[in-house]
């Protein structure tokens, strides 16, 4: 496409009055004119206004009529040219099938021809081809005043309304006759040939965004997870081996002193496994099991040397006893404990099953320890905006001698301050495996109210002592879901927008970095 910038500048050179593009460049498509004008306008060399108007133009068929006459005129000529009328069947052969059909009808209507048995004969000496005349006028003036006629021609698809764009162009403040080519970028070539010294550079558009950078992304929920992991690492916590989705009733419930008739164990709440069918009673993991936790292999050699073997049979019996008859100063739940119920396989309903497993390992060599995990748990819940059958649980465990409740509260203040929550209060609550149990409420500045942000407590003696942990060892446990604080922080109202296959990839790709202490 020819560059119009010079012709435009030329056209303006002789006058200070605006010019019209339809006068100056009648046959140039308006898009080409516009692109040249934009280039000039961006340098303030010209200014222009866009004038849009509607005109009447001929369709392809209309053009043909202007050139060769209307269908009815063609029919009349063909009939007139025949010596002794024209056989009707011969008409399409002479004027064409389409012309014959429409033209014959119109010619009859106008009284130009008549029918004589199987022949057509002229009914008049000469005719005026009004249709063609009309279209000629339209072609010249691009308008038609008589609306009724216009509508009729439109209906016959001989004319159509078209939009015409015209530009009213005048000199801009930086008008010059010459259009100096502006460079858009500094190139290696320009460095080599030195043209950068004289080149004129197009001003950079500082109002536009740069080129989008192709990029991978972490999932937003995993970014929040990483923040929590960092907090745990900063505070000396070791990550627990939660890569174990299938648990037994024993590890998921019984060992946590959750009675076998507890509603959490209902089919309505817990996923049970149909295949494989039944677990084995608790026993030592095979030595080569990659899931053996690090806690089974303490970093310090001194601890390792003090380890005593774990008696799994005793643990099993202790758990049964504490449920069924009471033990360790507890009266127990006093119901007949069923071993088969304990060997049922379940999808873990909480990662506390793993905490239990790790604490039992700790009994081989009781010592101060801090553990955490953030991983998926499963609940057989009806799915809605705030519930999925899967979510992530954040869990922390601190084991030490003579821990106090005030210490748990003090710890929570530091833990939650690291994610930007500075006002906490604690409500007595109930949980089968912690006593005391405290619900943690944090003051949410944005919502202007206290919101429940987690659960905490000290694990019950009925859970710890069957493992063989000493009586004066206290263990804090606390937990929260990963999804809930994420939803509160980022105003996500539907959990399905955060976890699962329905999450919008655009959201994943554009979600900003997570900085819990600032957000």
């Amino acid at each position, binding site marked *: 496409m020819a560059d119009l910038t010079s012709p435009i500048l030329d056209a303006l050179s002789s006058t200070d009055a605006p010019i019209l593009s339809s006068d100056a460049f009648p046959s140039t498509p308006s898009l080409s004119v516009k692109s040249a004008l934009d280039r000039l306008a961006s340098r303030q060399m010209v200014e222009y206004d866009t004038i849009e108007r509607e005109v009447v133009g001929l369709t392809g068929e209309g053009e043909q009529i202007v050139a060769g006459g209307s269908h009815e005129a063609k029919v009349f000529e063909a009939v007139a040219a025949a010596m002794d009328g024209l056989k009707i069947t011969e008409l399409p052969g002479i004027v064409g099938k389409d012309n014959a059909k429409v033209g014959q009808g119109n010619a009859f209507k106008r009284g130009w021809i008549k029918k004589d048995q199987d022949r057509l004969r002229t009914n008049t000496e000469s005719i005026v081809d009004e249709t063609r005349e009309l279209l000629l006028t339209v072609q010249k003036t691009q308008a038609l005043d008589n609306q009724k006629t216009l509508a009729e021609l439109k209906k016959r698809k001989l004319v159509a309304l078209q939009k015409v764009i015209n530009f009213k162009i005048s000199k801009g403040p930086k008008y010059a006759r010459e259009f100096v080519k502006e460079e858009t970028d500094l190139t290696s070539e320009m460095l080599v040939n030195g043209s950068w010294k004289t080149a004129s550079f197009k001003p950079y558009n500082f109002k536009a965004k740069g080129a989008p950078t192709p990029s991978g992304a972490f999932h937003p929920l*995993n970014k929040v997870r990483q923040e929590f*992991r960092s907090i745990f690492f900063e505070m000396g916590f070791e*990550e627990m081996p939660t890569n174990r989705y299938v648990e037994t009733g024993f590890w998921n419930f019984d060992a946590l002193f959750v009675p076998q008739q507890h509603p959490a164990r209902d089919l309505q709440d817990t996923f049970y496994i149909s295949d494989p069918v039944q677990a084995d009673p608790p026993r030592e993991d095979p030595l080569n099991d990659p899931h053996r936790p690090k806690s089974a292999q303490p970093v310090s050699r001194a601890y390792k040397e003090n380890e005593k073997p774990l008696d799994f049979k005793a643990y099993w019996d202790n758990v049964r006893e504490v449920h069924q008859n009471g033990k360790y100063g507890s009266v127990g739940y006093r119901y007949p404990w069923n071993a088969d119920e304990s060997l049922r396989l379940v999808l873990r309903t909480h990662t506390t099953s793993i905490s239990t497993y790790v604490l039992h390992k700790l009994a081989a060599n009781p010592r101060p320890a801090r553990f955490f995990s953030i991983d998926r748990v499963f609940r057989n819940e009806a799915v809605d905006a705030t519930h999925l*059958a899967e979510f992530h649980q954040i869990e922390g465990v601190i084991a030490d001698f003579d821990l106090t409740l005030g210490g748990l509260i003090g710890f929570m203040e530091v833990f939650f301050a690291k994610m930007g929550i500075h006002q906490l209060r604690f409500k*007595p*609550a109930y949980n089968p495996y912690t*006593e005391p149990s405290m619900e943690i409420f944090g003051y949410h500045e944005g919502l202007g109210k206290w919101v429940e942000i987690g659960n905490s407590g000290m694990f019950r003696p009925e859970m710890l002592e069957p493992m063989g942990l000493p009586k004066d060892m206290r263990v804090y446990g606390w937990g929260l879901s990963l999804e809930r604080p994420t939803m509160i922080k980022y105003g996500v109202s539907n959990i399905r927008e955060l976890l699962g296959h329905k*999450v919008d990839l655009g959201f994943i790709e554009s979600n900003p970095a997570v900085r819990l202490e600032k957000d």
Partner: protein
Amino acid sequence: MPTISVDKAALFKELGREYTTQEFDELCFEFGIELDEDTTDTDRPIVDGVQEPPQLKIEIPANRYDMLCFEGIQLMLNIFLGRKPIPNYRLVEPSSGQLEKIVVKEDTTKVRPYVSGAILRNVKFDQARYESFIALQDKLHQNLARQRTLVAIGTHDLDTIQGPFTYNALSPKNFSFVPLNQTKELNGEELMAFYEKDKNLGKYLHIVRDSPVYPVIHDSNNTICSLPPIINGNHSKISVNTTNVFIEMTGLDKTKLEIVNRVMVTMFSQYTAEPFTIEPIQIVSEHNGETRVVPDISPRTTQAEISFINQCCGLNLSATEISDLLKKMSYDARPSANNPDLVDVDIPPTRADVLHQADIMEDVAIAYGFNKLPRSFPNISGTIGQPLPINKLSDIVRTEAAMAGWSEALPLILCSHDENFAWLNRKDDGNTAVKLANPKTLEFQVVRTSLLPGLLKTIRENKHHTVPMKIFEVSDVAFKDLELERKSRNERHFAAAWYGRTSGFEVVHGLLDRMMAMLKSAFITAEEGLESTAANDSQYWIEELDDPTYFPGHAASIHLRIGGKEHNIGTFGILHPTVLEKYELKYPVSTLELNIETFL
């Protein structure tokens, strides 16, 4: 947690003052119950032209069965506030000196072996008390009694029936009676049919329906009082005017049976002519040695260590101070006469939740105020923070994949059987996947054995996104493994999927190469292999693979030699068009999936 609705004005009257919603919320918070809603400013329902008075909806912890009614909430809060003394519950024998009896027949062991009961004499009900009495039974049935399976309660107007009573188990055809609020006499079978569709009772029928004998309690005139756990007889029906109430309960769990009994009688003996008196009855049950007088409302006497309480709470309270705090929580406690480190504690019959001195310690902390406890920071005991090795490895793989321009997806771990097998043109050999017994929907039939279904569903749900789409996931799949205690094991996988106008086969192949390079594994081709064998301890190669998941001729298996051992760690390729069709994908997809645990 159960939620109990109580009349606001009545409760505040009992508490001796008005509370603002916020003040009452604070009180609940300190005590450990939760004010869910105050209906004062809501559109309350209008019944018989009268608008329901404002209610407080209070959430009660699941182990405080004594607080599942208005009577329990007001009593416990009043004791907590120091406004009421701890009730002195007493058993009072009838003036005749003859205890009422329930004689238990041995056949009951076939269906519902245990029975208990009590009598409340000279009870004064009014409409509110009567409704609360009915509602408490309902709440106990729902919660502690596990939908009437473990325990079921029946209450009767004692003046309409005549002891001694018999607890028997009869063939459904061999007895008949008019059920509560009905007019027609039905036998056991007819009764099951009659209540089959009943919204309230239908769900309890299964507890006894298929038993050859049904449990029945009848009086000395053979009038049937109840068919537990389904329904009472109409004959002995109680009303707001009833003054002598016979309470019976049957069940499978002895402990819970007595808990239910104690809660019922302690709460409603508040309304007997002489408050807190209960008339005991005798259970005669020789065949199983359960003959006894019930209810046992004597407090459970125990001791708690002062050092334990102080150590856990971080306090330094005296035995007297601890005793005083415990009184707020309805215990009768006093310093032990013979051991300075003990307090003697009488646990009232209302407090079935107290199992261990840890529970007593918690109540000291609650009475003291959780939020007033001296705060400290637990010792830094020289623990060492460290990630789980497999998670650290996963993070390396995730980071490399994201840096290579791929976006991380986080689909669900559970999926349908078809998504995991048939849709990927894979066959279930029965030894691979962990299957769920009770999913609510088809979406959750198996634990995935591959990350592909989740990635393909993620693409399916994101078709509005520009192509190509490049997504990945690093997470666990699970397999059956009968060698292990839990008969299954997780395995950490890395998977990626490309979706675009072209197949992306080489792109996915390139991602594999990049990942292997980052994990210090060299690619072995015919030539390079010779050079690199000595230089590296980890090498990989790929082999053409015939696998129906993939398009023929465009799939490979991935092989790793590490520490002298060879492993087949995964596959990649262009997905077969039939797979795309199942997952409703319009463009070609190439995927990569490998087990990263070999790199640990």
